[in-house]
């Protein structure tokens, strides 16, 4: 019993990645990648250096924000964005329901499942702005093109989450309703819809929020809304009006965020 257990007197934090080799390889790979990335980054430093003093002038041109001299067109743009957001969200969600049902593995037969997943994947891949470019080409300038682009983008987001929610639902309730002799529509209406509804309402408000933010950029390629007004303000070098528009966008997004948080709590 003379031997004493040697306790270590220092302690080291266990690393996040246990395997030492893997850890060193990851660090090494990261270093190589960063060297390559910054090595191939071609930056015109002279232009950047010139730009910094210009940047401070640029930023000071933002203050104070000018809400009044272009108020008519700002108001017009904001309202157009809001209408566009509302109908794009509603139409997008209405279209998402069949796609979402079709993309749920426990509901749809295999070919339907693959088709719906394909549609969702494609509409998720392309950013709203690319969709908007094509919508403008097809439907002409104006809010209608923005509405189409945002609706398609909404399908990719909403149908995917709806499908995942349906796949994760409790099958017991579905079986119980089935056992009463319910038709397919009754089954969907009474067994599936009540289970996914609370989360879906929250997501709908969240998507409304995203669509409003995106409606500010579809205007850059001619899709109408506040983005068009913003681009005009930039092109005319009216940075004080542009600052006002940005502040209004931030303000509306903040309201939407609070509203969606409140609504989600209320639903659940």
């Amino acid at each position, binding site marked *: 019993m003379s031997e004493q257990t040697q306790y270590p007197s220092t302690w080291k934090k266990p690393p996040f990645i246990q395997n030492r080799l893997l850890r060193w390889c990851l660090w090494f790979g990261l270093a190589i990648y960063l060297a390559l990335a*910054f090595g191939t980054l071609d930056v015109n430093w002279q232009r*950047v250096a010139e730009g910094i003093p210009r940047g401070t002038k*640029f930023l000071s041109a933002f203050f104070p924000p000018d809400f009044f001299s272009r108020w008519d067109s700002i108001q017009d743009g904001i309202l157009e964005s809001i209408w566009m957001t509302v109908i794009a969200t509603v139409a997008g969600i209405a279209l998402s329901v069949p796609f979402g049902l079709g993309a749920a593995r426990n509901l749809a037969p295999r070919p339907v499942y693959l088709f719906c997943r394909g549609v969702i994947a494609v509409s998720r891949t*392309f950013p709203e702005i690319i969709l908007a470019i094509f919508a403008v080409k097809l439907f002409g300038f104006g809010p209608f093109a923005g509405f189409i682009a945002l609706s398609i983008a909404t399908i990719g987001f909403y149908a995917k989450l709806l499908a995942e929610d349906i796949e994760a639902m409790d099958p017991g309730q579905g079986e119980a309703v089935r056992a009463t002799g319910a038709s397919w529509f009754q089954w969907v209406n009474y067994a599936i819809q009540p289970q996914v509804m609370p989360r879906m309402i929250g997501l709908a408000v969240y998507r409304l929020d995203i669509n409003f933010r995106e409606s500010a950029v579809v205007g850059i*390629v001619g899709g109408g809304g506040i983005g068009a007004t913003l681009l005009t303000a930039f092109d005319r070098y009216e940075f004080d009006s542009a600052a006002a528009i940005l502040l209004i966008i931030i303000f509306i997004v903040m309201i939407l965020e609070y509203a969606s948080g409140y609504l989600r709590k209320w639903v659940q």
Partner: protein
Amino acid sequence: MAVIDSTDGPIWRRRTTGKQLAIWCGWLVGVAIVVYCFKLISDKTIWMFVLDSGIQAADMASRMVPPKWSYMDNLWRPVWDTINIATTGTMIALVLAVPVAFLAASNTTPHKSVRAVALFIIVSSRSINSLIWALMLVAIIGPGTLAGIIAIALRSIGFCAKLLYEAIEEIDVKQVEAVEATGATGAQKLAYGIAPQIMPTFAGISVFRWDINIRESTVLGLVGAGGIGLQLDASISTLAWTQVSLILLVILGTVIVSEWVSAKVRHAII
């Protein structure tokens, strides 16, 4: 749930009559709002163009096939740039998001007023799209990849900081107390009490945002901020539709690969 008595015996209904009426009224108001919005939009629409769109779409599609595969030689570099914009932008954003998140979390913030400022930074970074950031940055530091990187970084700060501060607020306080009981200083509490708890979330957020940024950096070129968007813009303006279709395919491929990578990494972490 309600049961209505009738001559044939009780009939089951999902809702009482009053509740059903209230729901119908809600629907009526909602539909009225949507129809009103649609009317306002349709007033601003030239319907002739919309009706014409089927023919236009068929025409465009016929011009787009087959993709001009030889153009691929000009695309490798922009794809590399796009990935770099997304990756370095995400890294910068993460470095900046960590302090903002700690200042914004109600349990680690030094003062309420600091928290308000941090929350404002988060909201403004989140509400302004990366394209608008890029538009401003191109005006300041000139067109090129650097403007794209900074635009992506500025846009991602809000997103990363928001998810991170929510994670910080939900940590287990007991572990921090235990570290505190050993006599740890504030910084040690942060490093040994809080950081290990939020590390998995942090890694998850970074991969998630990287995936989104790949998607967003494909279009930054439209306003001159580098990446494959430059080629897309040039091809669309010169009506080179076979190049456009190839670029769209390349974007599709890049996004699918990035989604696959992020899913794998997230799976490995969690």
